[in-house]
């Protein structure tokens, strides 16, 4: 472990200050309460001396705090002051232990706090100094007590001394390992923060790039789509049926390309959870009706019967992002229309059980084999029609599934080859407002 930089010292100071204050408060409480409970156990029963000691503790704390603040304001290093403060703490602790006399045993462990703090704020060598001073003081006091006759030199007292010295060594190791654990946690936290920031930057760059790319791609696509639509609409005069057909196909493919471009950004955002959803209580019926209206013309052009089947009194309130749920319905409907050449497309809504609302998009298209069904909602999977051509971008159903699941629902498919398909999704009905 290396010596801490000054900035880190300051940060760690804040963290351990609460424990420091706790210790100091505890000291004061003990110095005031204990003498009243056990007057014979404390050597300094003289109230004046007691007061002097309390004030001594207070004074040194305040003195050092003020000094540190002053130095910090001036931008100077507080390392020296910290060292002095810790040394003072050790000496004071030793002195108070002496003052406490026979019952000071449990308080011996307070050295641990000083050891930890010095390891965190200064260096790994400082605990050695603390332990050295504490050992010397402990031994010195022992002999001083023998000298004053308070205790006798015996196996019993010698053992007590030995235990104290050994516990000092344990406290040093334990304090060091605690400090090290704390510091490596800090390091990991910092690293995580750094990586997160980098990730944010990369994502932002990616978004910007995709946005610009999407914009650039959309312009020529708009022109292609626009000119083709104008020819189909007859702006250049009568066109043969076959021409119209080819042009319609070109339009469809162009639309597919436009959808792919629009989807590019969404997929990565949804996957990474970076889309911000505006969740609201929404009427699912209204969303379905809007999508129905927007696809009527297209269905008509293909000669399909397009209708909705929504019973009265349907429970349709759901908690979703209104724009996204429209995307979901739109994706299913657009697929149904795209894949069907005949028959009908029906959007059916039901409450299969209380608290669930279900939307089925049923078509008479070519159907989907059991094999493909399991892969359909996966990323980049494109369904094969029976003729072997590929449709779709491979992203629509995947995004649809992610969205439905995000809103707490389920999505699925029932289909057989040549028997059409029923794409469905279910959502929980939200509680009455």
């Amino acid at each position, binding site marked *: 472990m290396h010596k801490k930089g000054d900035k880190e010292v300051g940060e760690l100071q804040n963290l351990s200050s609460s424990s420091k204050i706790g210790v100091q408060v505890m000291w004061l409480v003990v110095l005031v309460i204990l003498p009243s409970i056990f007057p014979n156990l404390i050597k300094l029963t003289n109230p004046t001396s007691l007061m002097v000691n309390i004030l001594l503790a207070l004074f040194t704390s305040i003195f050092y705090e003020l000094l540190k603040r002053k130095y910090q304001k001036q931008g100077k290093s507080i390392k020296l002051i910290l060292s002095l403060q810790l040394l003072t703490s050790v000496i004071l602790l030793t002195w108070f232990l002496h003052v406490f006399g026979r019952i000071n045993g449990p308080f011996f462990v307070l050295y641990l706090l000083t050891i930890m703090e010095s390891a965190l704020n200064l260096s790994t060598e400082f605990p050695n100094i603390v332990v050295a001073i504490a050992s010397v003081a402990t031994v010195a006091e022992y002999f001083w007590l023998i000298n004053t006759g308070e205790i006798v030199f015996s196996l019993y007292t010698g053992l007590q001394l030995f235990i104290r010295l050994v516990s000092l060594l344990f406290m040093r190791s334990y304090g060091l390992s605690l400090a090290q654990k704390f510091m490596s946690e800090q390091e990991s936290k910092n690293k995580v923060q750094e990586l997160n920031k980098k990730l944010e930057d990369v994502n932002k760059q990616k978004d910007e790039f995709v*946005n610009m790319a*999407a*914009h650039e791609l*959309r*312009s*020529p*696509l*708009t*022109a292609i*789509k*626009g*000119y083709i*639509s*104008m020819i189909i*609409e007859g*702006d250049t005069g009568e066109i043969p049926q076959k021409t119209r057909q080819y042009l319609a196909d070109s339009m469809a493919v162009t639309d597919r390309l*436009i959808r792919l*471009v*629009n989807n590019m*950004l969404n997929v990565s955002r949804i996957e990474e959870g970076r889309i911000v959803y505006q969740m609201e209580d929404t009427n699912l019926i209204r969303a379905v009706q809007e999508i129905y209206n927007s696809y009527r013309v297209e269905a008509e052009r293909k000669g399909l019967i397009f209708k909705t089947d929504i019973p009265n009194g349907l429970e349709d309130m759901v908690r979703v992002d209104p724009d996204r749920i429209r995307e979901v319905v739109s994706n299913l409907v657009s697929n149904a229309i795209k894949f069907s050449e005949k028959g009908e497309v029906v959007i059916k809504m039901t409450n299969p059980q209380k608290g669930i609302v279900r939307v089925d998009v049923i078509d008479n298209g070519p159907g989907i084999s059991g094999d493909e069904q399991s892969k359909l909602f996966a990323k980049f999977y494109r369904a094969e029609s029976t003729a072997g051509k590929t449709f779709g971008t491979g992203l629509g159903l995947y995004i649809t599934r992610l969205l439905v699941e995000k809103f707490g629902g389920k999505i699925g498919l029932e289909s057989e080859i040549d028997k059409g398909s029923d794409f469905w999704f279910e959502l929980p009905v939200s509680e009455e407002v």
Partner: protein
Amino acid sequence: MTDNISSPLAQTEKSDKKTILLIEDDPFLVGMYKEKFIVEGFMVLTAEDGLQGLNLAGTNKIDLIILDILIPKLSGVDFLAKLRQDEKLKNIPVVALTNLSDAKDEEKVRSYGVKEYLMKSNYTPSQVIEVIRKYLS
């Protein structure tokens, strides 16, 4: 004898036609929209950047502005800001026709009071006409 006075009928015909100012820098798209608008019976003025657009708006009677956002010299947003500052021009309805899909961009443009914010690639020229008709009555 030369007829110096245009017939009243011709004059009313001319003034009946609504004038659309199209501000768009992609020449393919300009050609396409202009064709469609003329076929549908509108007069069309075109500008390829925001500055030119502002000039044309100031010197002609414009009934509707179709505005691309990513244009040179004066961006669509700056154009809108200047338009709103001009007493004579601030009430001309503006329809934003752009390929910028970012929600933040849309919010910014809408805050200048555009009547619609349309994604170019989602609308055929006919569909654009359908949308703008209601602002041209």
